[in-house]
């Protein structure tokens, strides 16, 4: 498709282009005057103070099992609250294996694997003394990277992504921490298996790839596999004049998933083709999302959104699970896992509260 780029480059650039930009700025400057800028100067240090306070307030809970793998996966740099909760509760099978990719001079440390009947999390870090890893991703979501499972009989099967997983790059150490999320491998419990990560995705002014395979072999221990409970609900509510139905709630140690249908989830274009569109509910859900470059998404404190409330405890959205594939007209809303499932309430904005009991 590089010819498409070349075609677009054929759009001639008129001589007066920069002058038009200048005109726009001149107009804005004229209207804006000086007052707002002074105000902004005062606001910026105030915002910086808030950031420092919240960083100091963050105190990860300690547990003996954590020492077995990199603590980065429980830190604020990983944007998957479900994964962090599962690790804190001691779920997951510690792997601790190292693989050296000689050709690319990258050392890969496999740390942990967690699976239930819907998805698998594979936690690993990779580092290099010679290669700048900042643009290096194991992107099985939309990059060139792929995930495979190889069984004892030599069978090799691709495992598809679930959500886009979490990634954090530490510039000082030139080290990437990745929590991949893909199809469940629960059916292989008790078996000796090999997971193979195929190809590195380079995101740097467009996408590129490096051919490689990073293998990790282990016997999947059944004691670390968590279960999933599904509750059919069919509960209706209205938000901003649109009607939504909570079809079902899925509980697991990794997440709480709500399957929702709505009256404004389908867009039909002029050719009559239908697409999924962001509903008012989804926009409300995303309203509380904060993008943290290099570390994915977290909750923007103080902003209105959609949350769960479990007996008074706020359960946050898992924004790293955005864009989980769903059928047309359905939105899958993912939150952190909940322990107390008896008194769970969905809170949309400040006013709408829907008990998730039957």
């Amino acid at each position, binding site marked *: 498709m590089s010819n*498409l780029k070349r075609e677009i480059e054929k759009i001639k*650039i008129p001589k007066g*282009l920069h002058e038009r*930009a200048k005109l726009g*700025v001149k107009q*804005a400057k004229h209207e804006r005057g000086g007052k707002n800028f002074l105000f902004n*100067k005062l606001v910026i240090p105030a915002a910086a103070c808030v950031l420092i306070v919240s960083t100091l307030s963050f105190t990860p809970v300690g547990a003996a099992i954590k020492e077995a793998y990199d603590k980065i996966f429980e830190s604020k740099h990983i944007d998957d609250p479900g994964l962090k909760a599962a690790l804190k509760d001691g779920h997951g099978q510690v792997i601790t294996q190292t693989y050296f990719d000689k050709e690319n001079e990258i050392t890969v440390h496999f740390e942990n694997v967690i699976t239930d009947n819907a998805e698998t999390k594979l936690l690993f870090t990779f580092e290099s003394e010679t290669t700048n890893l900042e643009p290096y991703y194991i992107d099985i979501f939309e990059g060139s990277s792929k995930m495979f499972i190889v069984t004892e009989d030599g069978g090799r099967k691709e495992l598809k992504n679930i959500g886009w997983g979490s990634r954090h790059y530490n510039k000082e150490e030139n080290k990437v921490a990745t929590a991949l999320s893909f199809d469940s491998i629960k059916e292989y419990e008790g078996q000796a298996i090999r997971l193979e990560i195929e190809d590195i995705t380079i995101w740097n002014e467009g996408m590129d790839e490096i051919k490689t395979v990073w293998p990790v072999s282990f016997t999947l221990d059944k004691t670390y596999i968590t279960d999933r409970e599904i509750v059919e609900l069919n509960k209706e509510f209205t938000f901003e004049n649109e009607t939504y139905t909570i079809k079902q709630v899925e509980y697991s140690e990794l997440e709480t998933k709500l399957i929702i249908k709505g009256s404004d989830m389908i867009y039909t274009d002029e050719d009559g083709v239908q697409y999924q*569109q962001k509903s008012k509910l989804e926009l409300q859900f995303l309203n509380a999302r904060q*993008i943290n470059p290099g570390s994915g998404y977290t909750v923007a404190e103080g902003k209105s959104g959609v949350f769960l409330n479990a007996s008074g405890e706020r359960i946050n959205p898992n924004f790293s699970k955005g864009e989980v594939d769903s059928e047309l007209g359905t939105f899958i809303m993912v939150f952190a896992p909940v322990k107390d499932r008896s008194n769970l309430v969905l809170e949309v904005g400040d006013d709408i509260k829907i008990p998730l009991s039957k």
Partner: protein
Amino acid sequence: MIRLVQKAQNGNDKAFLKLFQKYEVDIYRMAYVYVKNESDALDVVQEVAYKAFKKIDTLKNPDFFKSWLLRIAITCSIDVIRKNKQVVHLKPEYNEMIGLEDDDIPLSITLQELLEQLNEHERSIVMLKFYEGYSFKEIAELVNMPLGSVKSVLYRALAKLRKECKEADFYE
């Protein structure tokens, strides 16, 4: 770049223009693909510069400056299209705008096909993917569409373009 953004946020128009100049060609081409004529595309560039400088204090992360500008460009372009809905162009101006130096055209898809065959959604997503090199995730953020829909729109656009090519081959 971070320093330039900070300066611009403090009201320094020269810093802003220096930054803007780096991306104005991309903004112009993005606008052109939407509005299909030079005059409107230039209007969009001016409007983007106006809105961006006015609102630059709302930009939280300087790394997102380009994406932020392109998002404004998309909104402004759609506004222009909506305003122009009643206007009928007898002869599309882009026939004259496309360079005549087409010696290297064993190209399967032409700019003209891109502009004529695709609707505005499809054009912008093709632009963002193949001209700007954005990932699907980034495009979904930019055009505020679910990622699955972005993929569907892009694949459909490419299918349309391929179909056009096949038909053209048939009649040759």
